[in-house]
């Protein structure tokens, strides 16, 4: 069947999403970040299936085995073992679930809650929204680590409790950003036109506001994700988050810190992975930001 070109410019006929992808794919760093991000994501889901040894299984015949590239290492233990004879490679693979996977869950939770609260705040006016704003201002000023300390003091240490703390610490910026984005949308002329056509609040929200702000939402989520990974790792390192036997990357670093001279791999490799995970998220975020800006300019 012959194809007709109805529009003079082929570019304009593409959907916003494919325009965004075109701009995104032009940036090498962003694509590299996306590949890395996908790899971490896959690892977080598949980790228990691909570990060569049990991450908590202690082999007391092989304590503090050096990595396999050194002469004393074994090829079955690519990164060596720790002071309890646990395979470092398996622990690190499983650690992706804790540090990266839980950060993703935290951000999704904070995003959903922020969407709810931000919509309520953005759609309401007057004293109610002003009081709400000031409470948010307060919440934004409490440093996230301090908030985590308070929540740990109330609920006790543990990965789940710090997840709540990080979610709470991320929430204000989501609510703030979403509220502003919605307020900006509501002042547009096309919203007024749609309202005059008889649309109710829900229709305006679902047909106009959401399609127009999802780009901003994704950006906010990537920024929050990098904060969440760093916070989970930092809390694990300080011993407030994931507790000792757990294979969270920050906790592994704290665990192997006293053996840093004998087995530096235990500190170096988990740290490198945290760095790479955050880097991949930031690269994707930067790429998205540039792509979104270029798409709007065209």
């Amino acid at each position, binding site marked *: 069947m012959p194809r007709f070109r109805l529009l003079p410019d082929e570019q304009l006929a593409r959907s916003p999403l494919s325009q965004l992808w075109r701009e995104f794919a032009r940036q090498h760093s962003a694509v590299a970040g996306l590949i890395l991000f996908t790899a971490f994501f896959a690892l977080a889901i598949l980790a228990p299936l691909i570990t060569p040894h049990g991450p908590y299984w202690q082999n007391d015949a092989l304590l503090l085995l050096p990595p396999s590239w050194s002469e004393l290492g074994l090829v079955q233990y690519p990164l060596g073992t720790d002071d309890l004879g646990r395979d470092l490679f398996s622990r690190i693979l499983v650690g992706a679930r804790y540090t990266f996977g839980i950060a993703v869950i935290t951000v999704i939770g904070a995003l959903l809650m922020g969407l709810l609260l931000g919509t309520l705040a953005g759609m309401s006016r007057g004293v109610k929204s002003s009081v709400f704003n000031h409470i948010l201002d307060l919440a934004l000023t*409490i440093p*996230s*680590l*301090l908030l985590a300390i308070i929540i740990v*003091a109330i609920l006790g240490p543990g990965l789940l409790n710090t997840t709540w703390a990080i979610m709470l610490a991320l929430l204000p910026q989501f609510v703030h950003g979403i509220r502003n984005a919605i307020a900006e949308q509501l002042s547009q002329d096309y919203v007024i036109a749609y309202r005059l056509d008889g649309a109710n609040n829900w229709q305006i929200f679902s047909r106009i506001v959401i399609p127009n702000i999802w780009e901003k939402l994704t950006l906010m989520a990537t920024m929050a994700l990098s904060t969440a990974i760093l916070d989970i*790792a*930092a809390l694990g390192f300080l011993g407030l988050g994931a507790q000792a036997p757990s294979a969270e990357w920050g906790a592994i*670093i704290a665990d192997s810190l006293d053996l840093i001279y004998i087995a530096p791999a235990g500190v170096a490799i988990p740290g490198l992975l945290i760095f790479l995970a955050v880097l991949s998220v930031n690269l994707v975020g930067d790429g998205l930001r540039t792509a979104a800006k270029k798409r709007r300019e065209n």
Partner: protein
Amino acid sequence: MILYLLRRLFLLGFVFIALSILAFSLAYLFPGEAWQNFSGLRDVPAAEMQEVIARYRLEHGYLSQYLAYLGRIFSGDWGLSFASQQPLLKEMLPLLPATIELAAYALFISFVIGIPLGIAAAIKPDGLLSKAISALAVAGYSIPVFWWALLLIMVLSLGLGWLPTAGRIGVLYEINQVTGFMLLDILLADSPHQQAALYNALRHLLLPTLVLATFPTTVMIRFTRDSMLEVWEQSYIKTARAKGLNRAQVLYRHGLRNALLPVIRQIGLQFSTLITLAMITEVIFSWPGIGRWLIDSIYQRNYPAIQAGLLVVSTLVITVNMLTEILHTLFNPLARKR
């Protein structure tokens, strides 16, 4: 402008009330009895219990208790620390300057390095220099602070032996605390070893400041660059060029002044992240600041200390926030109109 300041002041009052309500309610939320968390006493003989109840108005409603709490905060009676049984306010006062000192130097370094690099990156946005700076900024933005600190300690302190790893000054020097700011105290001190002490303190300061400065520097680079690029597109820049000003003149008179405005604001917004990072840095470098004290407090389940720390640290962050906001308004007439 006066109206604006009054409105800000009103807002500040509101935020402080909300903060004090939060700190007050923590006494009930934390484990243990409320009077323990208020007073910092573990055990009270049964005979004195009546006195404690009267003092904290525990037989009255929450509102009355809260007002009593506010009264105690303002009169300087913040309760005792569980761990040391010392008055909390006295314990915190020498710690706060250490944290402020560290954060202030880190912020200063981030200005000195970050802003010029950001401008350099904005001059040719697709050039090699700009790409290199951006890559550096993304890397610095992504590195976990505790790991970065450990790496630097391993290489610079333990490997090469150039810098000390912990504390504010060598144990050989005895410096009287006057202001709590180490460098200032050394300059005020009348000692024959002033030079040596100053050198020693600077060596202790270098590594923690460098670690802490990494994040704000990268934020500065990114923001200066983005804001410069945005300003550079404006029509007043084109007008200035058309008038015949050269690049440097346009950059200084029209570009920078407009581009650095949002950067000022950013300092306030990033300050709470900076304090979080300062707390972690203090733990690693055994820096005797309020962050390390707070993290020690959670290890010791020292609830009155956490409550007091929340008040002090949040007040610090709120004050800095407010100051940068006022500065921003002072420099930017457009923001005053709203």
